[in-house]
């Protein structure tokens, strides 16, 4: 059930972002790294504005600032000048270079420019490391850009050698609060972990006295190099590519077992994650999480009648949509439309895998959708709530139903980076938020004005 809506030529209010934006976000989660866009100036500024509006944090993305003559004669000289200037002002450990549709189309060979630049600068001290990823915005979404950057840095930097006890964790694109939780969980299991990327501090940092040119935090480069020696990789995401991902690359080049799970949203998916950690650590699930799970089940019971049979529309990044579908199904909400602007070709199957044993029938699952199409279908479904990022607000307003804000971007509320989605504690917050939104809607629409449920 992937395609039964009319196939429009034009796109209206896209439900996806462009590829380089995802790559820049991934690079922001690596310690001492400045993302760098090889393209014209506007791309960097637009992406910065878009990301800032979610995180309310500074995000510096450098640019080759290409102009007309560079588009004709090639962007190599400006790339090199830009790298020199970023090195001088930011003193980064690494510059993560992403391409744009402009430089891909004029045929700039960034890898070759970097080899030339290495020769030009041979012998100079304090040069950062350079990693590049190809991100033409005319193919794929920001998620392909994000995973592409992770794949490339692992491919270009992970080294083999004597094995160690570390576990690689590749969570995909989740909130800063989610990254913090994942680190805490790994720590509580006593597992040494390299999490890539790590946006927990770099995009949600404290107020400062001295401006940090590059915010503290992020996955250390030394840890990334050592990823080829870890004992296992956990890669989250059920719609990821079969070949070119960080976990697959580590498996192929360094023989590291790749455990691929869904993003742990809701009890079922989180149980799978905790069971794996238990197996890898040889320890039982720590009491703290056993209790969290117990409280969560208790909350599910307390609230189940308010939400049973409600119909939800979910949209956003494919793996987030899969995780949210799993969660909604297990609390008794029926996902009637699961939509994404992405086109992995795996969304319907992944949703079936996580909801098949609960839902009486498969929800409508659509890849490659925009908000025009989502709205068009939504009006025939009489949904009770909408779950996704801020850009679904016009639809929620039109249908006069609650929007539960999850994922990225959250542009119309504060604290998007602190929304917790993962684990039992994330499910607890989502459950309370959703249940209360439904109760509030009923309360607001009622003329009685009860002050109890």
């Amino acid at each position: 059930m992937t395609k039964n809506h009319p196939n429009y030529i034009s796109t209206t209010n896209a439900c996806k972002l462009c590829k380089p934006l995802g790559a820049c976000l991934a690079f922001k989660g690596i310690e001492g790294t400045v993302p760098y866009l090889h393209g014209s100036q506007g791309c960097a500024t637009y992406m910065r504005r878009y990301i800032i509006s979610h995180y309310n944090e500074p995000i510096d993305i450098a640019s080759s600032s290409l102009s007309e003559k560079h588009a004709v004669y090639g962007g190599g000289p400006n790339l090199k000048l830009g790298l020199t200037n970023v090195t001088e002002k930011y003193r980064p450990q690494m510059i993560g270079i992403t391409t744009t549709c402009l430089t891909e189309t004029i045929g700039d060979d960034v890898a070759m420019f970097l080899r030339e630049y290495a020769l030009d600068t041979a012998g100079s001290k304090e040069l950062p490391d350079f990693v590049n990823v190809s991100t033409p915005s005319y193919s794929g979404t920001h998620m392909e850009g994000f995973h592409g950057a992770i794949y490339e840095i692992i491919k270009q930097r992970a080294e083999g050698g004597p094995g160690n006890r570390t576990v690689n964790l590749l969570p995909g694109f989740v909130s800063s609060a989610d990254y913090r939780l994942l680190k805490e969980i790994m720590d509580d299991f006593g597992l040494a972990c390299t999490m890539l990327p790590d946006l927990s501090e770099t995009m949600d940092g404290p107020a400062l006295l001295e401006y940090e040119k590059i915010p503290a935090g992020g996955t250390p480069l030394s840890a990334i190099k050592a990823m080829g020696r870890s004992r296992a990789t956990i890669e989250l995401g059920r719609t990821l590519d079969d070949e070119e991902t960080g976990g697959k690359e580590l498996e192929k080049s360094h023989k590291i077992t790749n455990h691929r799970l869904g993003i742990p949203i809701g009890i079922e998916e989180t149980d799978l994650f905790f069971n794996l950690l238990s197996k890898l650590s040889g320890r039982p699930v720590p009491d703290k999480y056993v209790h969290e799970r117990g409280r969560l089940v208790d909350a599910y019971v307390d609230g189940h009648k308010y939400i049973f049979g409600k119909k939800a529309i979910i949209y956003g990044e494919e793996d987030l949509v899969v995780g949210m579908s799993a969660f909604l199904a297990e609390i008794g909400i029926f996902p009637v439309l699961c939509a994404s602007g992405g086109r992995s070709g795996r969304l319907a199957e992944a949703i079936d895998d996580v909801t098949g044993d609960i839902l009486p029938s498969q929800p409508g699952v659509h890849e490659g959708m925009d908000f025009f199409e989502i709205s068009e279908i939504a009006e025939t479904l009489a949904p009770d709530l909408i779950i996704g990022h801020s850009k679904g607000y016009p639809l929620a307003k039109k249908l006069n139903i609650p929007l539960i804000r999850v994922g990225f971007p959250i542009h119309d509320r504060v604290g998007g980076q602190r929304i917790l989605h993962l684990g039992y504690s994330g499910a607890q917050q989502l459950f309370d938020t959703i249940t209360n939104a439904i109760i509030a809607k009923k309360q607001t629409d009622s003329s009685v004005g009860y002050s109890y449920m």
Partner: protein
Amino acid sequence: MEAVALKDRQNQIHVKGQAPFNITCNQDSLAGAVSQRACVFCGSRVVLYPIADALHLVHGPIGCAVYTWDIRGALSSGPELHRLSFSTDLQEMDVIFGGEKKLRLALLELIKRHTPKAAFVYSTCIVGIIGDDMEAVCRQVESETGISVIPVKSEGFMGNKRAGYQAACDAMFRLIGTGDTEKISRFSLNILGDFNLAGEIWMIRKYYERMGIEVVANITGDGRVDDIRRAHGAALNVVQCSGSTMGLADMIEEEYGVPSMRVSYFGIEDMSEALYDIARFFKQQYPDDPEADAIMENTKTLVQEEVSRLVPELEQYRQALAGKKAAIYVGGSFKAFSLVKAFRLIDMQVVLVGSQTGTKEDYAELEAITDPGTIIVDDSNPLELTSFLKEKAVDIFVGGVKERPIAYKLGIGFCDHNHERKEALAGFEGMLNFAREVYSSVMSPVWRFVPRKQKTENLPPAVG
């Protein structure tokens, strides 16, 4: 100590009184300098965006359209077609085989669906490279649908935001001269360069109505295609935000002989001056006409009423804010003049002022109206701005979304004066809103906790 700016940028920074004024500006941004600027496309998109009954189709990959979806707080009193983000979402095959066919079909589909008054089609970087003949496609669709379809030459890399403003003006100029001007009053004007953020153009229009002047076209806040078509029938073009629409005013003057006047609607001083200048213009045009005299009288009454209404409240803010320091970094420098004056009105001191796209004349004027020691900067970046903010111990920073986290991270107040804001800052009421905005950031008790203001003896002992 490390220099604040890269060597190639040092002559884009001037400190008043330290050297003879000779700032470099209007150049391509330096690679790797993390400019706050956008691109040609951005310039065109922000200027045309508020035309509410036109279809705005971005021809390119998805990014350019999605990052400009509902980007401005530009309100409409009627249709809201401008708030939708239309794109051809070019894919790899389109890039290889050309996007003309997809563009044509997308236009036909969208025109059928929305029946717009006109369509603007924006080219993006990639369209300039693959060489789609947008002009030909637009002409063809125009003949097929009978709706004006206008290409906007806004390839991102073909210059900076200023080039985009010009491309937008060129696009609008194609509409001008195609509407009926018969019933337009001789006391009439077009409003250029106001984008109706938070309803500002509605306030300004009311002032003109109270003065007895007809507004022909809003260009472009709450703009309508049919109004723009007859804009050449107005007696005067009143241009705010000179960077963006001055080009259009010049073209109209050349072709149709309509004179233009530069104004600013920010701050009491500039707002009053703008209205008086316009009243004087009509008085000069029609020296013996009682209607022109009435306009002047109405203007005096209006200014007196408005000013006397806001002075008492403004005085409270002035008392609280006097002596505080302000920094300004905005897109176009013309707005900066008004902000310098507005801060002076509430006795605040401007210590840093800069813009993305100012001209040499603009910066010279800023140099003339600011105090000695003020830093004047062109096309700056986060690292320079943070070091200036710290050096000058600033209390409030006025800028756009990209400047906000720079201020907040350092524990400095912030006032959004860019196109996403939801507060009306133009007009007489706008001055009051502006003062209130500044006041509510500067006077917030939260600053006592930020490291910049934290008294270390009050900190709880660190654990661990």
